[in-house]
């Protein structure tokens, strides 16, 4: 296993941190946060253009250097397979045939929990249509396996609800998904702080995708750097192989012999 590179579909990446571009104060902050995060993949949403906009007004894509990062258009806000497929077909047209996409189909506007049955339908249609589908899903390991069998290129289970920052609520399900998947497993949604990302990587995730945890930090640019290190720390700890936990009996770090007052 190489700690440096990982592959999604036909593309290879070094950074294991994928970041979103929503909720920033302005595009300049977005740009700095991306840069500080070291991310090589950044997600974007697809929305109707604002018709009243002046031609001179800046747009997000002006702030992203596509030579350095890969765009990952998503289907945020879609509640049906139809909408999601349509949105990504538009995204492909918009991005000159770009085929790597993030599929998410939501099931409920209050929780933003995914609708896994619609997600399965959309995934199948998108794969048929030539897309490389990174798929946002719940932590249901049976659904995750089915998405893999359909031909997705990355499985992206939630840690907790989108925008909640609650961290990994059910590490057991996540572990089953990781153990059973041949694909990259990327925690998407729910990371709230650096240690959440470290934990995900220590469990054996291949990468972490986040947006709010950076954009809604008090200092987003500082948090972007923290997340970069957090993901690297988690990955390196996973590769280094942690010590075993011992509930107790405790084991001293210093030698038990040679003491001035030897223990009975």
């Amino acid at each position, binding site marked *: 296993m190489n700690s440096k590179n990982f592959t999604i579909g036909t593309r290879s990446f070094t950074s294991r941190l994928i970041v979103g571009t929503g909720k920033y104060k302005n595009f300049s902050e977005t740009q700095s946060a991306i840069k500080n995060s070291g991310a090589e993949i950044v997600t974007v949403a697809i*929305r109707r253009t604002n018709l009243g906009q002046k031609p001179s007004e800046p747009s997000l894509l002006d702030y992203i250097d596509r030579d350095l990062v890969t765009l990952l258009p998503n289907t*945020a806000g879609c509640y049906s397979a139809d909408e999601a497929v349509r949105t990504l077909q538009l995204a492909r047209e918009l991005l000159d045939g770009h085929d790597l996409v993030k599929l998410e189909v939501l099931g409920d506007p209050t929780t933003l929990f995914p609708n896994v049955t619609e997600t399965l339908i959309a995934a199948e249609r998108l794969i048929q249509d030539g897309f490389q589908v990174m798929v946002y899903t719940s932590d249901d390991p049976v659904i995750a396996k089915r998405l893999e069998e359909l031909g997705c290129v990355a499985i992206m289970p939630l840690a907790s609800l989108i*925008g909640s920052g609650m961290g990994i609520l059910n590490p057991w399900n996540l572990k089953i998904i990781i153990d059973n998947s041949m694909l990259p497993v990327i925690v998407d949604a729910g990371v709230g702080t650096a240690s959440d990302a470290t934990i995900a990587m220590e469990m054996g995730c291949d990468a972490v995708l986040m947006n709010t945890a950076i954009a809604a930090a008090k200092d987003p640019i500082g948090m972007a750097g923290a997340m970069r290190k957090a993901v690297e720390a988690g990955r390196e700890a996973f590769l280094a192989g942690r010590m075993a936990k011992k509930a107790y009996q405790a084991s001293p770090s210093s030698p038990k012999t040679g003491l001035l007052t030897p223990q009975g």
Partner: protein
Amino acid sequence: MVEVWINGGSVTLEDNTSVDSLIDSLGLSDRKIAIEINHQIVSRSRYDSITLKHKDKIEIVTAVGGG
């Protein structure tokens, strides 16, 4: 004159307006966008050859910040 729907709002255009000139008039020529007419994606190469018809439903989308 034809009446079309653009991004959910009603707009009145000259007869025989091409997609190209619509984009131009909207100030979107230099923007990265994609266009759907009546749920069919229109590829960029065809912007000058397609003219808009009465009741056409046009969607013009772009990339925005999202997670």
